[in-house]
């Protein structure tokens, strides 16, 4: 007979996996929509964010019920707490896809000289998101540091772009495209930080300790 707690935890895990799938798809589509200035796709991304928010609420409610009724301990307790943390980070990462989609709807979001930086940041961030979420479900702590180290690449790109923004602002009468592009980069930088948090949640799930990954 399967313990009741296993059934409830599997339910919550499937909600979390659904959330991961939505957030990954939102960012994959945000990148595509950004490359093609596809406002219709951007609208779909914004709608999808509501699903992600609902899933986050459902995970919180079901986790609260699990804590109240099943009194989880040991790995169950660590998983329950790590799941709540990861859902919070995913919800924020989903919000960032929505922010990028809103820039796309405004029109012409990527200022030419930034494109190379944004593409690079997006690629690194997507690899971090895919692998950190996979790591949460299939813990392999050896991989954590490798994933987290990539966040420095994102930060470095943002730093490089800062010089570009200064000259771009001086050369244009309408700084909105420049600022929009820079905001997208800032958004990706924050999304990278949240992927790092997911790595921390994966460690917590196994070790029951918060390890600051920098």
């Amino acid at each position, binding site marked *: 007979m399967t313990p009741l707690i296993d059934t409830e935890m599997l339910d919550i895990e499937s909600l979390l996996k659904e959330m991961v799938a939505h957030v990954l798809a939102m960012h994959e589509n945000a990148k595509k929509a950004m490359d093609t200035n596809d406002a219709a796709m951007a609208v779909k991304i914004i709608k999808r964010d509501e699903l992600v928010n609902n899933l986050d609420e459902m995970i919180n409610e079901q986790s609260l019920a699990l804590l109240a009724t099943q009194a989880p301990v040991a790995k169950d307790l*660590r998983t329950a707490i790590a799941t709540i943390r990861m859902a919070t980070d995913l919800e924020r990462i989903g919000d960032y896809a929505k922010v990028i989609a809103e820039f796309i709807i405004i029109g012409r979001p990527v200022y030419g000289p930034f494109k190379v930086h944004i593409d690079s940041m997006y690629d690194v961030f997507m690899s971090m998101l895919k692998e950190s979420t996979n790591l949460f479900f299939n813990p392999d702590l050896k991989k954590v540091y490798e994933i987290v180290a990539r966040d420095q690449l994102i930060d470095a790109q943002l730093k490089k772009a800062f010089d570009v923004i200064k000259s771009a602002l001086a050369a244009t009468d309408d700084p909105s495209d420049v600022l929009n592009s820079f905001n997208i980069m800032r958004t990706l930088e924050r999304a990278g930080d949240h992927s790092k948090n997911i790595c921390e949640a994966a460690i917590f799930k196994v070790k029951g300790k918060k390890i600051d990954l920098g």
Partner: protein
Amino acid sequence: MDEFVYEVSNLNLFYDQVQALKNVSMNIKKNQVTAFIGPSGCGKTSFLRILNRLSDLVEGCTINGTVKLLDEDIFSPSMDVFDLRRRVGMVFQKPNPFPMSIFENVAYGPRCHGIKDKAVLKQLVLESLKQAALYDEVKDRLNKSALELSGGQQQRLCIARALAMKPEVLLMDEPTSALDPIATAKIEELINTLKKNYTIVIVTHSMQQAARISDTTAFFLLGELIEMGPTKEFYATPSDPRSENYITGRFG
């Protein structure tokens, strides 16, 4: 540095040919609550009963190994067993008040140990009832039968009865398993208060109770001590997979 009340080394217990405890070693810290958990038949109650040599009363029971109470070997010929049981009080699963008044229940032990002065006895009884958080509920009916009390009150009376002997250690064998949640909460609160002055060792089948009230948890399985450590760590990150499986309900 931690001060230990009990230091147990390589303890083995046999009931005739059946080995109930296998090479158990542990230290029990002073002024802490130590909880023993484990499935039925794992040896936790047998171990508890060794600590004040109640095990002596079991026919066919053989023990080897060392149990020191504050550096004194409890099996040493010089150990006075009656004094040991005064120093190490016990509260059982089912409240067992004597069929006499509330006052006499608490006065009985000290009187048997020679305290005859009525004023001294009265002071000892009132002090013990207060320590057991029962005084306010019974102060107007001290001469009424203890059997009129509720189950939770009877159990606190048994705790008062043990405290009247001025023990150093209180052993509790599933002290709340026959009580409702409100009476259980009162006993748990009491245990938390009492640990300031006493060392408490509790056997419980409620893992949540062990998690709530104990500082240290020891997990027994098939007569072996599998793991013992700070309760918060034990319930968050147990180190032995058998402990993990037991506390998460996936044992077997």
